[in-house]
């Protein structure tokens, strides 16, 4: 369902969801032309990121993973600076030092992005610890995949968060629903022995819910409650947002196996290609959002197409900007190991 919001706000969310989709498509296409290296895309999870992070305020901090593109865009990142970073250009968010694995924008509330699975959990917990001790009412959001639950760092982090009632939201994006175990009604990810991820959380006394990550309203409601709880000092919340992995993410290197998204699939089922019919009809959050917008009178196919063109334009601009940007000067590689401060001459 759609979140209960004005048309204008909903269109804003849709624009961000489209921006993510088109950004990732642009990137996958680009990777077919030039060597972009290994990267991970957020296709299929857009509604989770957009609906959840829209609720954050300035100063709230997010700690994300290797699959971070959508998260930054959801908080308003400039696709040009993002792509520039992914291409290792000096104009990128991190001056080309981080790349796709470590996209960070302190200003947007992404102070440090870890590509070590389970790396972000202690960091996010610590940020919440800091906010708590500093008496701030900001919250910390830990964004991670189901795989991170297999790392011991999760276990240690949730214990600390629970004991200290930290202002923290664990937003676990479980994109492994098509995994073998899950299909057999057993394990939700390939290598975790628990039947429901939230069962792992319950013992710590941390409220935990499972939601459909493509359901804008469910995501927004769950996140609203979690943020309220965090801001009012009641401690952490765990949200499992379930999505089904985009077929283009199943190979080791992302591939546009479903082609570039044809938005008319949202209102015209006949254009959906047979091969990925199920995914597009039930699991493609962006199409579903569009469909719901149209059904509830917030948009028409025409307004959606117009919005999409705007977004695609933006992506073309971003691509040109990034491609034309220079690489950093080699010698600057030696800079920025340390923040300049009292102790370093």
């Amino acid at each position, binding site marked *: 369902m759609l979140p209960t919001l004005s048309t204008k706000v909903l269109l804003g969310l849709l624009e961000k969801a489209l921006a993510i989709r088109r950004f990732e498509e642009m990137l996958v296409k680009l990777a077919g032309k030039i060597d972009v290296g290994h990267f991970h895309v957020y296709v299929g999870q857009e509604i989770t990121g957009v609906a959840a992070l829209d609720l954050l305020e300035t100063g709230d901090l997010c700690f994300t993973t290797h699959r971070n593109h959508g998260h930054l865009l959801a908080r308003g990142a400039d696709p040009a600076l993002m792509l520039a970073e992914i291409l290792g250009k000096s104009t990128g968010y991190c001056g080309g030092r981080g790349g796709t694995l*470590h996209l960070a924008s302190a200003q947007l509330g992404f102070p440090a992005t870890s590509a070590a699975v389970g790396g972000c959990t202690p960091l996010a917990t*610590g940020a919440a610890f800091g906010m708590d001790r500093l008496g701030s009412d900001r919250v910390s959001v830990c964004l991670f995949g189901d795989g991170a639950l297999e790392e011991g*760092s999760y276990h*240690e982090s949730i214990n600390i968060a629970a004991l200290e009632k930290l202002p923290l939201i664990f937003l676990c994006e479980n994109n492994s629903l098509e995994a073998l175990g899950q299909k057999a009604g057993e394990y939700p990810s390939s290598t975790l022995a628990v039947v429901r991820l939230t069962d792992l959380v319950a013992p710590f006394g941390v409220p935990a819910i499972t939601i459909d990550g493509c359901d804008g309203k469910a995501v927004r409601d769950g996140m609203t409650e979690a943020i309220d709880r965090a801001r009012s000092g009641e401690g952490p919340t765990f949200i499992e947002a379930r999505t089904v992995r985009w077929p283009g993410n199943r190979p080791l290197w992302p591939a546009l196996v479903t082609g570039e998204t044809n938005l008319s699939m949202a209102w015209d089922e006949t254009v959906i290609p047979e091969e990925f019919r199920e995914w597009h009809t039930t699991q493609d959050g962006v199409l579903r959002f569009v469909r719901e917008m149209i059904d509830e009178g917030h948009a028409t196919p025409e307004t959606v197409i117009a919005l999409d063109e705007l977004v695609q334009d933006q992506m073309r601009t971003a691509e040109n900007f990034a491609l034309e940007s220079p690489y950093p000067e080699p010698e600057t590689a030696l800079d920025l190991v340390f923040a300049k401060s009292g102790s370093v001459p």
Partner: protein
Amino acid sequence: MREILYAEALVEGLRELLEADERVHLMGQYFLGLTSHRELMADVRDSFPGRVYYPPIAELGYVGAAIGAAIAGLRPIVDIATASFIFQAFPQIVNEAANIHYMTGGQTKVPMIFHFNHGIRGGGAAQHSHSPQAMLWNTPGLEIMAPSSPYDVKGLLKTAAESDNPTAFVDHTRLFDVIGPVPEDDYMIPFGQADIKRGGKDITLLASSFMVQLALSAAETLAEQGIDAEVVDPRTLVPLDEDTILESVAKTHYLVIVDECHRRCGVGAEFAALVVEKAFSDLRAPIVRVSTEDVPVPFSQTLERYIEPTEDKVVQAVLRVLS
């Protein structure tokens, strides 16, 4: 000037930091290990309610949390207790804290200190006797202080607390009883300034942390034999004051390194490599390292003694180098 114990100077430093800045918090509390001085820390805890956090036995989680807290604006001083437990926190220290400022293109700072007691404390056996400072030095992005005296520990700690970088505080329980002058007034010791702990002209002894004390006693013994050894203490490994080291070698022409790390790839290896690269023509003899033998640290006192650096081994090494 008043003389106080190293343990007292350390705790005084922590106290003053807690008093001066509300953002300073302690996470973990075994700064003084299991030594008889640990009551001093209990007092700190009582004086600053809410500012001393007692973590679970979860070094990865709570050291990582300190890093995250630093990112959010706290100035945590986190204690890992026995250095061997730092391995649990390596993913967060080596792969997060050290990298964050650089890989964000300078956007984010990690102003935190992590403290641990390294080395052989007597009967710690293989799993409680590590000296991980060489591994940390092989990790760009960390500042490293390794004090050897009451004066240094307080002055360096003050500087570390002002740093916006993650700083390893390499400590040693065998230093706690060392006594020495510490001003009543506030002072700081800049990082990257070595200290000549004893001037001398015949040979340079290069050492850090507790090994400085060992080098100093060896120097006394050598003095009785007419050998005037200079003891150079870099005080911080990152940044390193190469100049003072190289100048000392340029003057004495001989170098013995005293290092509690295991020999292979220890801190002593870097000192030797540095000097042979930058002061080769000053050297008149091989550089000899007195380090912990390359075996896991045994429990039994006779074995432990055999593999650790000792004053006698330093003296013998000097005599060998000068002969």
